[in-house]
């Protein structure tokens, strides 16, 4: 069974045809529980997200700030397993027909087995994977299996990436390119720096893939600002923070739907 890379491509193309940026939401699997996490992903789509990245919680999330670290801790203490991540992808995709990706550090896949992971993700209806600590030089085995199973390989580029390196990375990637708006870990920020716009411009010079911007975007005004120069806006910590602040599971899911709605207006330039 092939994965849903085509659905991802079509979804991003549709947003582009509407002359707007796509909204990409990030939510960790198993947070606060597997079932509520699945409801949260559905709520993000319901509120207006075009794509959702499901996080595979990790014991050592070196690229994440305190908000996602806290969510990962809660999920891992709750005993979340890779099977739960796959179930989250399967149920969220089945219920919405929308593209769902997984975002994970490399070691869990390395340990689980690349063929096993990619075949299960494709079977669950996944569209691809974002692998923030797997540099392009080490990604050969992954790409081979991802391609075989119809899964996108989304690479991250950073403001520090030189132009020649951007070309090398984007040539190896598929689906879209994840442009980190700043040098830092995940978390909400007051403003999205001008580094982001420069990075998007330099990245686009190397590829026809959509370029989505993540790190630090938390509100509709920032989403609108980024949407003016990027193909997509990626929001993670702001969703997780609203869930952490919610008094109960129902309120947490409702908060995700509400924020997705606000951000969906933002990416349409309606903050």
């Amino acid at each position: 069974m092939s994965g849903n890379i085509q659905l991802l491509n079509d979804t991003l193309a549709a947003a582009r045809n509407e002359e707007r940026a796509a909204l990409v939401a990030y939510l960790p699997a198993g947070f606060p529980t597997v079932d509520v996490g699945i409801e949260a992903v559905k709520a993000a789509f319901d509120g207006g997200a075009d794509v959702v990245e499901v996080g595979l919680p990790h014991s050592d999330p070196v690229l994440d700030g305190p908000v996602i670290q806290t969510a990962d801790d809660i999920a891992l203490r709750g005993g979340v397993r890779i099977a739960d991540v796959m179930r989250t992808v399967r149920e969220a995709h089945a219920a919405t027909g929308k593209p769902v990706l997984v975002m994970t550090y490399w070691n869990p896949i390395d340990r689980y087995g690349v063929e096993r992971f990619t075949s299960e993700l494709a079977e669950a209806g996944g569209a691809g994977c974002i692998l923030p600590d797997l540099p392009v030089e080490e990604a050969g085995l992954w790409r081979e299996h991802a391609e075989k199973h119809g899964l996108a390989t989304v690479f991250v580029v950073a403001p520090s990436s030189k132009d020649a390196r951007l070309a090398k990375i984007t040539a190896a990637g598929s689906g879209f390119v994840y442009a980190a708006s700043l040098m830092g870990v995940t978390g909400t920020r007051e403003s999205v720096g001008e580094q982001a716009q420069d990075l998007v411009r330099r990245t686009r010079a190397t590829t026809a893939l959509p370029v989505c911007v993540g790190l630090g975007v938390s509100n509709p005004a920032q989403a609108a600002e980024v949407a003016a120069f990027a193909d997509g806006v990626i929001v993670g910590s702001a969703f997780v923070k609203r869930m952490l602040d919610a008094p109960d599971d129902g309120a947490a899911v409702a908060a995700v739907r509400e924020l997705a709605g606000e951000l969906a207006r933002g990416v349409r330039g309606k903050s």
Partner: protein
Amino acid sequence: MSSDYFIPDPEGQVPNTEGYFGAFGGKFIPEALVAAVDEVAVEYEKAKSDPAFASELNGLMVDYTGRPSALTEVSRFAEHAGGARVFLKREDLNHTGSHKINNVLGQALLTKRMGKTRVIAETGAGQHGVATATACALFGLQCTIYMGEIDTQRQALNVARMRMLGAEVVAVKSGSRTLKDAINEAFRDWVANVDRTHYLFGTVAGPHPFPAMVRDFHRVIGVEARRQILERAGRLPDAAVACVGGGSNAIGLFHAFIPDAGVRLVGCEPAGHGIETGEHAATLTAGEPGILHGSRSYVLQDDEGQITEPYSISAGLDYPGVGPEHSYLKDSGRGEYRAVTDDAAMQALRLLSRTEGIIPAIESAHALAGALEVGRELGKDGLILVNLSGRGDKDMDTAARYFGLYDTDARVEADASADNGAAEIQGDAK
């Protein structure tokens, strides 16, 4: 002064250009760090072939560190090692009290060459943190040290030393609140501040070029010791023994002996409360290959790649990873790795103190306990070289609690002011 103390690997067979020692090593880092890590690699290659760099580093090793470090025969201690002769390589006598200064001075000079003004580092026992804070004071660099909260408690003396030297010490409260989490937090800092900051990594792990570069800065340990023991004992040792957390002092001792097939290279990992209890940090003994902190090596992890929490009475060995060259030496059979419990290490610590008047660090005491075992295996004709990687002053509170050395009043007072972490250690140790 013609002696050389900066002696990078002249053979240079491992790692390869991608940073692999056989199946281990590599560079598993986020894109945001690629440029900075590449800069370190390029700058280190340039420095290696620059006589001015070698000259400056050699000068510091002599005048500041106090190299060469002594080789001490410990015959009263050796009576407990099956009668084998035992020599200690006295890295504890270096300035700042451990081998860590060898690497720190090299990387501090590199920091200056790169034009960076700020240094960050992780520390477990505080030895690397103290050495780094020291070099930053010497060179006028801004310094931030990340240390797990549990370690700031059990190594409070070293926290005070770092602050005295002008460093900022950040107690890391995430995860297991030990060395692994300090490294995570240092990586987060580095990603955000990489323009002006060098991550002065303290062991032979991490992404390429750190495992090879840190090894090169510590190669002096084995090169000196090999020459010294040939002079003193007239032959090469049967075994070179060192403790292994990340593995920097061990690779420093072992490396010059790798071509000497008759010299066993024995790494002593922390077995904590015993491998069978699951409360240990014996990565090579009980781990599986995986990726942690930028390279492929043995890792303590579960069946889905989550890193498991390590445990050791020794803060400096309490780490679920190990340098990739050790994984390579293990799998090739050139290195042998055994696990030493908390109790065996603490007994060896007391034994060396009382037979020789040398108080070792708890880390180094793991090597001493391993040497006692190896000596009994070799018998009276054996000749053993042990790396005494650090001195034990920093561990006196842990040792005093373990052995009950405080007067009752002092103990009550100490317990009252003690944090939970130290109290747990005491409870666990008994």
